């Protein structure tokens, strides 16, 4: 089978044909695709860091419904509803200031200010830090929490601390 045939199995929909509302009773989404309605739908990001606007919608049982290549094409309300759900499923605080990074016995201890408040966490090893091709940095702490850094938003002191670990 050629890739083209396999591609046929991926249902890509136009954001203009999609409406999303919150299904609060089921802690999920309800989506309308033209004249179809789907209840109890969950959004998933297959590329949460590199293509955060690419979404796959599935049922609770994991059956795939459709794919949105860029959800920013949805109407305002749909975006708001979708992002509300995504913000619970993908919790990635953005680090705005690094107050201190100290090192002890193979562990880095970070004190940071994020867009969700102040936080202290620990990382171990170089693999806990991933540099993306667009310059952003993803940090995984030892408890598998995820943080995002946009170095161009940091002040000089934070950059100097960051240089200690990357």
């Amino acid at each position, binding site marked *: *089978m*050629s*890739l083209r045939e*396999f*591609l046929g*199995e*991926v249902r*890509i929909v136009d954001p203009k044909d999609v409406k999303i509302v919150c299904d609060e009773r089921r802690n999920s989404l309800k989506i309308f695709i033209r004249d179809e309605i789907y209840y109890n739908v969950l959004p*998933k*990001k*297959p*590329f*949460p*860091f*590199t*293509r955060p606007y*690419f979404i*796959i919608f599935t049922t609770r049982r*994991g059956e795939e419904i459709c*794919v949105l*290549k860029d959800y920013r094409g949805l109407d305002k309300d749909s975006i708001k509803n979708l992002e509300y759900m995504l913000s619970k499923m993908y919790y990635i605080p953005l680090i705005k200031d690094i107050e201190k990074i100290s090192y002890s016995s193979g562990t880095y201890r970070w004190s940071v200010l994020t867009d969700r408040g102040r936080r202290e966490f620990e990382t171990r090893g170089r*693999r806990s830090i*991933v540099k993306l091709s667009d310059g952003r940095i993803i940090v995984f702490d030892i408890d*598998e929490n*995820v943080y995002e850094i946009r170095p161009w938003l940091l002040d000089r002191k934070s950059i100097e601390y960051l240089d200690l670990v990357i």
Partner: protein
Amino acid sequence: MEDEGEPPDNYFTHLVEKDEKILFWFNSDLDEKGFFGRSYLIVTPKRVITYTPSTGYTRWYPLGGIREVRFLDHLGGGEIELVLKDRVVSLIRFSRSKVADFRKAARLLEELVFREVRLENKDIVVERGVSYDKKIDIVVRLFSLLKPYWRIGLVALISSLIAVALGLLPPYLMKILIDEALTKGNIDLLVQLSLYLIAIYLTSTLLGIIRGYSLTLLGEKIVYDLRKRLYRHVQQLSLGFFDRYGSGRLISRISDDTSRIKWFLTWGVQSLIVNTLQTVGIGVIVFSMNPSLAIFALIPAPIILVGIRYYKTRAWRYYHKVWRRWADVNAMLVDTIPGAMIVKSFTRERFETERFTRKLWEVVKATLRTVRLRLQVFPAMGLATSISAVLVWWFGGLRVISGEITLGLLTAFVSYMWQFYGPINILSTLVEPLQSALTSAERIFELLDSEPEIKDSKEAIDLEIKGHIVFRNVYFGYEPYVYVLRNINLEIKPGEVVGIVGPSGSGKTTLIKLLLRFYDPSQGKILIDGVDLRKIKLKSLRRQIGIVQQEPILFSGSIAENIAYGKEDAEPEEIIAAAKAAYAHDFIMKLPAAYDTQVGERGSRLSGGERQRIAIARAIITNPKILILDEATSSVDTITEKQIQAALNNLIRGRTTIVIAHRLSTVKNADKIVVISNGQVVEIGKHEELLERNGLYAKLWRAQFEEEKRALKEKLRVI
């Protein structure tokens, strides 16, 4: 053939007839009785001769009378045996050091006898040492690396030379200061000289900074260029080169050897020039100031030179011993810390602790030895220099008292004397790193000069492959005439699934390497859609062949990057579609970062089955016309194998597929099964046909079936 004591061209002429050409020869390190000594195996188109020069022992056998050539591996040595019509004879014996050479000799002889190939001396690689002329060439090429950055080099050199000249001034100014300013109470001169000295030290410091920065900049630029050039070149080389060189050696060329060259071209050369000039400059000054005092100053020179030489010849050995002892300690840690469970389960904690303590004590002993060596040499050198200084003060002082020389001159003299030994010390330690930098340069240039064996010919074309493959009379050997594949004739029709089976080492994977044109056949040809492989552009060919290996190699990066490796511009939906086809999408989506999950070095964070499915997705995304599955399901458990098999079935549909299988069940349903043994196709047919034929395939099938039955019984017994 040999890298030591090669005999002259006419060395064997008395052994052969007038028109009998020597095809090749190998030398052994044992004689016919097994004593250490030199003997030779010489092969001509008619005969094979053994010859021991020291005893004159000579035997020869006509090639036509040889029925079999046997290579025998013994403990501590080896032997080549010939099976003749009526007897078996021992042809030559050798130690283990010569095993590789004679293994090659045996195969060459076999080819010559049974295939009647025409061998030439040029087919046998001869390695030689580096000649003097070549060393000059290396130095010239090495300096050519400086060319693009000659301005930076010049800045560094000029700043160094000025710094050397300035460094020679202070003792002389001190002489004037003592004799003219202090003794005669000339305050103006005192101030003036002090200001000169401040200016000199200030300028020297500035020049030091300029020199340091420019040399570092120069070094980094050169090594950046060189590493980039080397890496680009290595990527262009054929797979055969990687096989011969080995990845460890290549990595060492790109990282370690380039660093040594960087040091040589920057600090090494500068240090050589600066310290030589400084030594000569100070020497000239002290002799012109007072020749008789200069002789006292030179007294420690021979002691220092002998001392340094003594130290250097032993230090390398002693420090290496320390490193080796540390390596022993580390090796033990690497064994026993991860293996703590085994140590504890056998209650060997005390044994391991004692073993570790002993190794640790070896480190202490080796370190103390280096300390003793240092204490033998350096204090003595320091003492000699100090005594010589005292002698200069003594005899110089007597001359100052008698008014022959001034106090200022003596002070300046002693000052120069102390400056004299620094550069001598540095120069004597430069020889070894300079030598090793030259060796590194030679290795790097050797790598840069190697040409890819496999490249596009001028008439090579882009071909839209349909998938019809023909192997026609193909012979191939990694070394000339030592064939791994012999007379392979095989036709695979478009869309056909062909299984290739055979015992380990029978040549299955080599067949695939030829199809991918990692190597060219020694004889015969491979055609795709009727076009000789050598006439298809490499990029066009390899882009249309997908391969899934037994141990798939993934690169550091995300899962998405690994799947898209074969198609740079892959759209995200294509990545997902390929993963779905490879039955990988579900497990990927269960990972928190899904397709953005980092796979770790070589995919270490994924299981074998997961890696395999990602490799299948990587093959699917390229949409290959020909697919090669090299033992793709042999390293996974049965459940994973089923998932992978389903993924492979998706991949195979509509493509010409070659499946190399160890587990024969994987190729049971193939359109055609090709059985290879000892580099030759011995059977071709469908599964049932081959079983009926009761040949090698049937034997392998039964052996595997029995093995699986036995394993199952064993499992049931355990349960």
